[in-house]
């Protein structure tokens, strides 16, 4: 048996998909990740004389408890792992509390940002083999995995996530690096826009951890709520994180994309929807729901910032335009939409409309967007699950033996 072949049937491979909003983890072969661990981690630092002891609070349950001096950090930056110490703690948590099995028994497949730096790839390879002693490892670009999850190995992947939206052309499982187009307009951008809007309308965001009791008030009236007793002194970062969670819920329920370019008269005719905040304050929202999301497709709507940013359909067409002319038909006929932010109501319909008008006349245009919420939020993870369980993939892993012989640079050779 050559060094690289692993019995795909016997020991299950693990698939990890780290992102800015969460780390998706689970077993290869399953249709969705069993664990979705937020990338936001609570950290407390206690100095006893010379030593500083750091304690980490990982995952929603531990994170949402108000603690004195607990700061909230995110170990990801620009889609890549930045804070390795915190990341290690989250991985430890994943193995101990979620997977509940020794790391040395499971081959590991990791997804990575399409523009991941070489140093970071090698560092991850080193960490996984040295600390966790895994039997085999592989690294795949998340755009490629998202394409696989939709049954394709070629297409233009439009990944709209928390920190940014990017158009990544994939040809036969390879990312065409020179044609990637990134835009900072993603879920968190919308969150900030929604936050600004609520602040301007005079709504006080009270996070739920502070509220012990609330009374029913009429629409638009000042909320009447009672503050919890004995709340510990929480840090600003933690308090702001909890406030953002409130706005996130507002963003995910209320925001809607207009089917066609925003027109004030048309939108005003759509009935308003009510929304109640944790404090009890409730109001009806109409116009704003559509206006906030319009900036995704038409950046001239963004207040304050110049409109040099690209709208969603622009991002797609620019990216395809940077590719070899012979590849363009296969890219236009396979635009794959993935990422949590794409679940925004009306996002896919609007994108379909905008892109159809932007496609050159002689090309066939087709938008592929999985209908289920899990398929889009966990697209890359699902692709990883499919790939790691394929028989033909088993010879592609980097085995521990190969790593011991050739070192971490094997990751550049075998994981394009």
């Amino acid at each position: 048996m050559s060094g690289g072949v692993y019995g795909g049937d016997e020991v299950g491979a693990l698939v990890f998909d780290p992102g800015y909003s969460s780390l998706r983890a689970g077993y290869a072969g399953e249709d969705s990740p069993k664990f979705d661990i937020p990338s936001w981690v609570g950290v407390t630092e206690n100095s006893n004389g010379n030593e500083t002891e750091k304690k980490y609070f990982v995952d929603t349950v531990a994170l949402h408890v108000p603690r004195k001096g607990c700061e909230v950090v995110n170990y990801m930056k620009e889609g890549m792992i930045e804070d390795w110490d915190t990341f290690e703690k989250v991985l430890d948590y994943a193995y101990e509390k979620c997977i509940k099995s020794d790391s040395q028994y499971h081959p590991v497949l990791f997804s990575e940002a399409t523009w991941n730096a070489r140093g970071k790839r090698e560092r991850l390879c080193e960490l996984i083999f040295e600390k966790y002693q895994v039997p085999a490892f592989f690294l795949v670009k998340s755009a490629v995995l998202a394409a696989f999850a939709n049954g394709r190995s070629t297409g233009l992947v439009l990944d709209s996530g928390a920190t940014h939206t990017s158009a990544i052309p994939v040809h036969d499982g390879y990312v065409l690096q020179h044609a990637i187009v990134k835009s900072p307009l993603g879920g968190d951008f919308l969150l900030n826009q929604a936050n600004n809007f609520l602040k301007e309308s005079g709504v006080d965001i009270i996070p739920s951890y502070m509220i012990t009791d609330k009374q029913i008030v009429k629409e638009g009236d000042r909320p009447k709520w009672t503050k919890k007793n004995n709340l510990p002194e929480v840090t600003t970062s933690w308090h702001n994180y909890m406030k953002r969670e409130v706005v996130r819920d507002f963003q995910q329920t209320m925001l809607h994309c207009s089917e066609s370019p925003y027109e004030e008269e048309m939108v005003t005719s759509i009935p308003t929807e009510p929304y109640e905040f944790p404090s009890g304050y409730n109001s009806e929202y109409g116009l704003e729901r559509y206006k906030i999301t319009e900036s995704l497709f038409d950046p001239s709507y963004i207040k304050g910032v110049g409109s040099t940013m690209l709208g969603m359909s622009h991002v797609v067409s620019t990216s395809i335009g940077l590719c070899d002319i012979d590849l363009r038909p296969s890219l236009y006929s396979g635009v794959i939409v993935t990422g949590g932010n794409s679940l925004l109501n009306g996002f896919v319909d609007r994108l379909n409309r905008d892109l159809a008008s932007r496609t050159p006349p002689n090309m066939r245009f087709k938008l592929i967007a999985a209908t289920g919420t899990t398929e889009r939020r966990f697209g890359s993870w699902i692709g990883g699950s499919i790939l790691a369980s394929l028989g033909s993939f088993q010879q592609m892993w980097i085995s521990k033996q190969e790593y011991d012989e050739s070192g971490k640079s094997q990751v550049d050779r075998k994981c394009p």
Partner: protein
Amino acid sequence: RYPEMSWDDYISKQLTGTGLVQKGAIAGLDGSVWAVTPGWALTQAECQSLAVGFTNNSGLVEKGMHLAGEKFFFLSATEDVLRGKKGNKGIHVAKTNTAIIIGLYEDPIQPGQCATTVEALADYLKGCNF
């Protein structure tokens, strides 16, 4: 002292001899072909545009990679490595101080296998100051 090997030997023993590279070639940075698997008609112009691609890939992006008249889609370029693909065939090109090493693979050879073989030869030659 390393055993004396001709450039042709490097191809037949270190590249195609492993079974992990279907056709190989070694060319200078100016494109002049030093050795090539018999029958593979690479031209100096083709090799030169590959050599240039390590520092400036705009030509490869626009026109693709051409070898013996066959067009491969340009996938990626770094300072040391170029990759190209066409259907179930592909090329992996590595750069040393004075030369470029070209490896062609076809199904069932895996891209990773060809990559490892070509880059291992490149590392060896760099170690000999080539």
